[in-house]
């Protein structure tokens, strides 16, 4: 949710602290800030607070609690106002489970035009585009208090016997609608529509986006203003099916209270008549869900401290509740809170524990070690598997980890990421063969010249009989005899005795040394040295003259003949920045040969 600091400031007489400070206090007591630039803070509102905090009012309320500064005026605590019931509008809801409330306000004689500067600036500050004064008013109130709103051009609806009629109904199979952005959508029967009951035509996708057919334009004079509450699941399914996520759908799918609709209607009608003139004829309020009874949630001081491991006092808890402006009663250390309608997230004692914890601050929670425990679960299978791994390593095998997706398999993904690999592997064999081919190529970089790579993997495979953990190696372990297989099912192997007392080997690793994405080049060099020469000496000369492109040097052969010793070395060259050329490496080799000759050795 993009929040403008200037907009927030409207809520306070006290000057708000700097953006850095706001970022800091919100991060540690409420929400992370995804981005801050100039006046704008992008607040990552948590899903459980999306019902009330996808709004400037919601964020202002949080800051009021965290910083302990009062709100100048809380729009959700002030009088919601009353309106006449207009004779010119009828509203009907087909399924009260999907539309919990529908308020329709009738406004006559508005003058559509550009918004005043303050409104344009406010919307632009949160990266919204100004359209015209009517549309801007609905967007502003939504961003201010969180209630999605919509204005229809009443003149584009049919009137019969002096009445407009709105019907909130399910879409017919394959019903079409063109939205305000001129996109045509084919709807499924699950989608909820706002329709003109007289013409039967759709004028909006409920809770998602308005329709083109009743768009407010420069010629519009009469409005029907919608402030409604649509059920979250239905909106979520429609928005997902249409791949159309909007400010409205995001709010409805988080189930704000239907009570909020009345505040939205009040604020938007006030703003419209302020900036576009006109007269409010009245408001229809279809509220089949009827106001929810206020729920009470209780928690004891003892519960708070026993969950948090804290030593908060009654006074601290009361202070947190007061700052959050949560109405409460306290009797014998039991706090009974009656959450205001917009706090739909507060339903169980643990919710209150969290409120107190985050407002007082998690830095006040001590770090306490767990007491000793006298029984730990049986870990023999884990240890048995680790022992198998250690055995493989001891036999010279290197462990690889590969991807679980495969070209073919018994179990298919409904939504693969890589279309070429839509199934789950049934065996590690294919991946291991590919890894081996790669390993053979890279072997000179990581293994001595007389060693060839042997690989193993321990991983889950998914044949149709069900998943199991497979151990597979690229070749048989010679020491295990002719009958040893290259594969084992570690989910059923008898590892109980094998793992029982086993302590898996532990390794300390050094800092990661990146390897090059460019090809390497190998060169061998052999030389005769006098028998009495220190073996390290030729190696030192090679390193000294090879420069930084030499990434590996192995001596791989040595024999003696007629008082002389023959040594053979393999050199591996590689650059982190580029592909080396043969000429370049030949140059280095000539330099090395020359240096070895100069030291009196015979290069063969």
């Amino acid at each position: 949710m993009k929040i403008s600091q200037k907009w927030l400031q409207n809520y306070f007489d006290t000057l708000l602290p700097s953006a850095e400070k706001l970022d800091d206090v919100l991060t540690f007591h409420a929400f992370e800030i995804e981005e801050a630039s100039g006046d704008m803070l992008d607040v990552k509102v948590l899903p459980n607070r999306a019902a009330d905090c996808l709004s400037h009012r919601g964020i202002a309320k949080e800051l009021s609690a965290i910083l302990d500064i009062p709100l100048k005026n809380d729009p959700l605590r002030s009088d919601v106002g009353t309106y006449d019931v207009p004779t010119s509008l009828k509203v009907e809801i087909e399924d009260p489970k999907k539309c919990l409330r529908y308020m329709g306000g009738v406004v006559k004689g508005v003058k559509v035009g550009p918004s005043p500067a303050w409104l344009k600036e406010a919307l632009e500050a949160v990266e919204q585009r100004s359209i015209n004064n009517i549309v801007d008013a609905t967007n502003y109130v939504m961003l201010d208090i969180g209630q999605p709103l919509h204005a229809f051009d009443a003149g584009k609806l049919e009137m019969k016997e002096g009445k407009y009629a709105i019907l909130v109904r399910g879409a017919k199979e394959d019903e079409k609608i063109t939205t305000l952005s001129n996109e045509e959508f084919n709807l499924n029967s699950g989608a909820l529509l706002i329709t003109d009951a007289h013409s039967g035509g759709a004028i909006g996708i409920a809770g998602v986006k308005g329709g083109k057919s009743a768009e407010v334009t420069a010629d519009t004079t009469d409005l029907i203003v919608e402030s409604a509450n649509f059920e979250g699941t239905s909106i979520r399914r429609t928005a997902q099916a249409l791949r159309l996520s909007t400010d409205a759908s995001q709010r409805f799918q988080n189930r704000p209270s239907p009570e909020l609709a009345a505040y939205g209607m009040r604020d938007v009608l006030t703003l419209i008549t302020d900036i576009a003139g006109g007269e409010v004829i009245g408001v229809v309020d279809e509220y089949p869900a009827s106001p929810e009874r206020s729920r009470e949630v209780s928690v004891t001081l003892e519960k708070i401290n026993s969950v948090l491991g804290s030593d908060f006092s009654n006074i601290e808890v009361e202070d947190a509740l007061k700052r959050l402006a949560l109405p409460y009663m306290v009797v014998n250390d039991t706090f009974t809170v009656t959450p205001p309608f917009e706090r739909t997230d507060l339903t169980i004692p643990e919710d209150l524990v969290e409120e107190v914890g985050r407002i007082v601050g998690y830095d006040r929670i001590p770090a306490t070690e767990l007491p000793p425990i006298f029984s730990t679960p049986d870990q023999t299978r884990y240890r048995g598997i680790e022992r198998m791994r250690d055995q493989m390593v001891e036999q010279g095998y290197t462990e690889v980890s590969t991807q679980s997706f495969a070209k073919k398999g018994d179990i298919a993904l409904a939504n693969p990421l890589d279309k070429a690999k839509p199934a789950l592997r049934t065996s590690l064999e294919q991946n291991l063969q590919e890894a081996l081919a790669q390993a053979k190529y890279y072997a000179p970089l990581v293994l001595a010249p007389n060693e060839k790579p042997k690989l193993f993997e321990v991983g889950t495979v998914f044949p149709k009989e069900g998943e199991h953990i497979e151990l597979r190696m690229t070749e048989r372990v010679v020491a295990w005899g002719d009958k040893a297989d290259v594969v084992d099912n570690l989910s059923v192997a008898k590892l109980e005795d094998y793992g029982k007392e086993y302590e898996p080997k532990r390794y300390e690793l050094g800092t990661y040394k990146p390897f090059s994405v460019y090809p390497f080049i190998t060169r061998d060099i052999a030389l005769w040295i006098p028998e009495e020469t220190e073996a390290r000496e030729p190696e030192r000369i090679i390193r000294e003259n090879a420069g930084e492109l030499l990434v590996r040097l192995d001596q791989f052969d040595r024999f003696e003949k007629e008082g002389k010793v023959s040594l053979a070395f393999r050199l591996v060259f590689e650059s982190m920045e580029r592909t080396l050329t043969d000429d370049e490496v030949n140059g280095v080799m000539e330099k090395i040969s020359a240096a070895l000759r100069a030291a009196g050795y015979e290069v063969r």
Partner: protein
Amino acid sequence: MSSPGRLHPITVAIREMADIFGRMGFGVVQGPELETEHYNFDALNIPEDHSSRDMWDTFWIKTRESEEKKVLRTHTSPMQIRWLESHGAPTRIVVPGKCFRNEATDMTHEAQFYQLEGLAVDTDVTLAHLKGTLERFCKEYFGSDAKVRFRPSYFPFTEPSVEVDVWFSAQQKWLEVMGAGMVHPKVLENAGVDAEKYQGFAFGLGVERFVMIKYGIPDIRLFHSGDIRFNYAFDEKKV
């Protein structure tokens, strides 16, 4: 006899983590990678069609109409339910294992990664114990000057929920490393544990992320590429 091979760095890390938590009384258990919708979501208080499901980009398995819906587990948390159902409370476990998220890969995101879940349930386990446990873990894993701090967060299966940051002295900054919290009473009840009597904490850390921070690895995609150069990109010393 050839010279020994090398373990994969993830194996090395999981062993080290298991050891540290083992000293605090946690045992290692493992669970399936192919999960039912029930264990991966519903039992963890993440109902169908709830916006909180958007927190996980999920790989769904092709199933028939009549079959229970299955997913590649998006986290190791389903083992909280499976383990409590079969073993009850009190308990302390860590669950290392591969998890899957259907999201585009880049230097810090992989569709397949390892998570290590932690769960401690008893009559008197608190958020302070969570802090103490994670602080000790981070000191032993990263070094004695590591510190942890909590920030408010939200997960459907914990209440309160926190985001955990670690002070990483080598970079002189706080790094976000995992989500955690007190097990939601509904989760305990869903697993058949008396939530009036027992409470507990849970956390889920990304193993690759910890390894990347500890050893300075720039790209998560190096881990599961099957490339043996990755195994040899570290000096290795037996402990």
